[in-house]
């Protein structure tokens, strides 16, 4: 029998309730790594990840340039 994709929730298979707290929702693994970040990054293509890497590094460099030497 062919299955038809539908937005409707199957009877007897209700969606899990939304849990706002990431800790309670199991967003981290046992080592404390935020899995939501990994899943988000995995949705990008390698090319997009490469651009993100350049962008992050440039962002750090811009922050460094903004840094004011601590006053004595």
């Amino acid at each position, binding site marked *: 029998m062919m299955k038809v994709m539908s937005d409707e929730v199957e009877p007897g298979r209700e969606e899990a309730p939304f849990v706002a707290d990431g800790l309670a929702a199991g967003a981290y*693994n046992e*080592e*404390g*790594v935020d*899995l939501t*970040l*990994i*899943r*988000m*990054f*995995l949705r*990008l*293509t*390698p*090319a997009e*990840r*490469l*651009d*993100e*890497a*350049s962008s*992050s*590094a*440039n962002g*750090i*460099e811009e922050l460094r340039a903004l840094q004011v030497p601590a006053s004595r």
Partner: protein
Amino acid sequence: MTFDFRRALTVLATHEVEFIVVGGISAILQGAPVVTLDLDIVHRRTPDNVRRLLAALRSIDARYRHDPRGLVPEAQHLLGPGHNLLQTTCGPLDALGAIDEGLSYDDLLPDSEEMRVGPDLTARVLSLRRLVELKAAAGRPKDVAVLPTLRATLVELERTRDA
């Protein structure tokens, strides 16, 4: 200083350099949400490839980062197993003759794969699994610090591949 890892890879590809992306950028390309400030490559240390690598490096004004005179790399530097830590117009680029206990391009080749990293650009990248193994074996604090994220990425990657 400007970081443009895509341009660095494009320049290497344009010059037909044989190399494997290792380190942070290889992890990032495979989905690890980590930050890095340099592009690490292990290049093939044959005279022809080193000649192509030198041409590529000269086109992006590569100079040794740790040398105040701004010396440029020469063939004899790149033919050896040492780590050539360079500053380029695309940002820091490390041309590594060998990594971890003398692993060369040829040693790492079986654990690498071509990856599309731009519209008309591919690069050979060390597998995340091998990268995790190498970092675990190295055991240096900087490697140990990033291992939980790399391992978790590997698990997620394999889970999505199996799905």
